[in-house]
């Protein structure tokens, strides 16, 4: 079946511009996560959605970052007024349900370059 998909695969933007990154989770997966993967920094947790509950935004690095999940499916991560330090690979993952021991299925990522 189809896995987690993300778009675009690559995004180059100028400093100060806003960007939107999209994630389509696996159908039926109630939990959705966003991570940032930077060279030498590993995976940095950004935000987590579980069903209809309020999202856990504790990992968002600044108020320029926001995310929403519509209809319990597709999610969009928005970065406003991008900065060069936002350059990274943004990964989305979903899991069937959040039990703490479930497998996360990752998308291919969006490589964001801020010039």
């Amino acid at each position: 079946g189809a896995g987690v998909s993300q778009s675009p695969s690559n995004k180059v933007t100028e400093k100060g511009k806003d960007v939107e990154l999209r994630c389509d989770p696996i159908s039926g997966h109630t939990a959705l996560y966003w991570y940032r993967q930077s060279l030498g920094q590993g995976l940095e947790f950004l935000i987590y959605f579980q069903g209809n509950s309020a999202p856990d935004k504790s990992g968002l690095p600044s108020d320029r970052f926001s995310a929403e999940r519509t209809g319990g499916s597709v999610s969009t991560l928005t970065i406003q007024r991008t900065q060069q330090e936002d350059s990274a690979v943004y990964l989305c993952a979903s899991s069937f349900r959040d039990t703490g021991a479930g497998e996360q299925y990752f998308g291919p990522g969006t490589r964001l370059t801020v010039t």
Partner: protein
Amino acid sequence: AQRVTQPEKLLSVFKGAPVELKCNYSYSGSPELFWYVQYSRQRLQLLLRHISRESIKGFTADLNKGETSFHLKKPFAQEEDSAMYYCALSVHTSGTYKYIFGTGTRLKVLA
């Protein structure tokens, strides 16, 4: 604070040699631990989880609560094991689960 530490950024071993990727965690609760792997040009994927007590592709990992470690081991490394490996901890906070990943270890298996 909850934390996952992978002390080695790069580990190089020869084919056929044993390999151990280190992972230490900090968490006051009951830990759920995972190893994820990312092969070149592939997605990050689950390798194994401690709760399953499984061996995948010859890899095993044992949770040692006394040493707060979850090291990944394989007795005989293969070239196809070359990849980026991430240790992850699932923590339960405020009624939800959050995953904390380590910074990763790149394993290079040399011919």
